[in-house]
């Protein structure tokens, strides 16, 4: 029994000694040594790669930040870092995560598209170039959709032509539907009228198919599924 007690006490004493030695070594000596080496050999890096301007520390070379004026407008004399989603207003070094938005997320896509034009403008790209290379390509699906929609209406024009000229003078304005209407009611040529309308229907069917396919693509994109 006494032998067992003394063995246990020795073990406890050894553990306490290791604790004390490691505490001093790892808690005091090692940090002081690393700090000392850092301050002696890598002073700038060890202090956070600080960036000074006019005698004032304005930021860190390792942490992104906004270079904006008081109103939040980007300052063109500074290089603008890439956008940040860390923290509530971005560039928060204490926030370890960015957004969880996937590449097809509609919010992210919209945000990126919204920034492209302003980023190009900030880099001094001429407005016309921004319009031709960024705005116009982004709008093209909508322009195509709207144009097809109006094209369909134009091909099927009836009201204005009939009310204003009834297809005249002569037969210069005998568009599809006016001609079909006159064939049906004025000349009682029902078969010819039907044939004209079937041809018109074939044209509108093809156009409307293109239109609807484009429309569904836009719709899927806006719902983030394409």
């Amino acid at each position, binding site marked *: 029994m006494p032998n067992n007690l003394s063995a246990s006490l020795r073990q406890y004493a050894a553990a306490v000694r290791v604790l004390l030695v490691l505490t001093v070594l790892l808690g005091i000596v090692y940090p002081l040594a690393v700090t000392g080496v850092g301050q002696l050999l890598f002073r700038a890096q060890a202090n956070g790669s600080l960036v000074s301007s006019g005698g004032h520390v304005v930021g860190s070379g390792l942490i992104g930040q906004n270079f904006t004026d008081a109103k939040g407008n980007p300052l063109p004399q500074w290089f603008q870092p890439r956008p940040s989603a860390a923290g509530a207003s971005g560039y928060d070094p204490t926030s370890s995560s960015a957004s969880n938005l996937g590449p097809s997320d509609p919010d992210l896509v919209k945000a990126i598209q919204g920034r492209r034009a302003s980023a190009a403008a900030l880099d001094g790209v001429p407005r016309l170039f921004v319009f031709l290379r960024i705005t116009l390509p982004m709008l093209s699906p909508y322009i195509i959709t709207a144009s097809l929609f109006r094209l369909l209406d134009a091909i*099927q024009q009836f009201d204005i032509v009939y009310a204003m000229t009834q297809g005249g003078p002569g037969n210069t304005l005998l568009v599809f539907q006016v001609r079909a209407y006159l064939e*049906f009611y004025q000349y009682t040529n029902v078969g010819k009228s039907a044939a004209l309308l079937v041809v018109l229907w074939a044209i509108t069917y093809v156009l409307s198919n293109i239109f609807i396919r484009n*429309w569904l693509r836009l*719709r899927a994109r806006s719902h983030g599924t394409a």
Partner: protein
Amino acid sequence: MDRSSIVERVLRALLLTVIVIFFLFPIVWILLMSFQTNEQILRIPPSLSFVPTLDNYRALISGHLLTSAGSLDIAFMRNLGNSVLLSTCAVVLALILGVPAAYAFARFKFWLSEDIAFTLLSFRFAPPLLVLLPLSLYFQDLGLVDTYVGLIWVYQLIALPLILWIVRGYFEDISPDIENAYRIAGHSWLRTFFKIAVPLAGPGIAAAGLLSFIFCWNNFVFALILASADKQPVTVGALAFVTASGIQYGQVASAIVLSVTPTLLLALYAQRWLVEGLSLGAVKG
């Protein structure tokens, strides 16, 4: 940050002015024409200085048109009433039929659902006469030619696809979780539809209804073929001003002003919803 130069700003202002004049000119011109006599309108060169007259409006309201060749009875106010009746009834019917259908297309995937929705939409793109000419023959057999019921029925070709596709987009934007939460409490899907889905899609339904009303109001060809003078709306009724003694431009202009006013006021009142409804219709479907 506005970095545009003065030249750019002046050019932009000039361009905008030209565009505004381009779009407002016909409206202002028609308004001015409505206060002039036919002689004042047709004088060469045209002049902006004239003594305004209310004769055109008086003739429209009294229904008694005086032309150089004699007098003519017109039923413009009746046409205006027909437009209100036809457009309102057509939109109400389309809403009753279209909103539940739009909900079904948005929430339930059933056999041929997309094909049926596409077919309904295709009516919007088909040439109206393609449907109207054969329909006019059948309507004669059914006794529906020159009746309000027949016209309201045919107006569904305009109103129903529009309401269906716009409202469907709104329903798809509402999270089904909200409805599921209500249904878990033991409510039927019908109750969920009326208590949750319809109130949430309210602005969209209003926008679709307004758009349909404007499209119905502006329609010309349906009433031209299927209605006689006493059932015709203003769009067709305006043809009465093309008389044997020439076109009565003053009356045409005042008729246009009177017929455009309701839809213009409606569009101005509901501008925000209309734009939202149009963009949803175009993109989100």
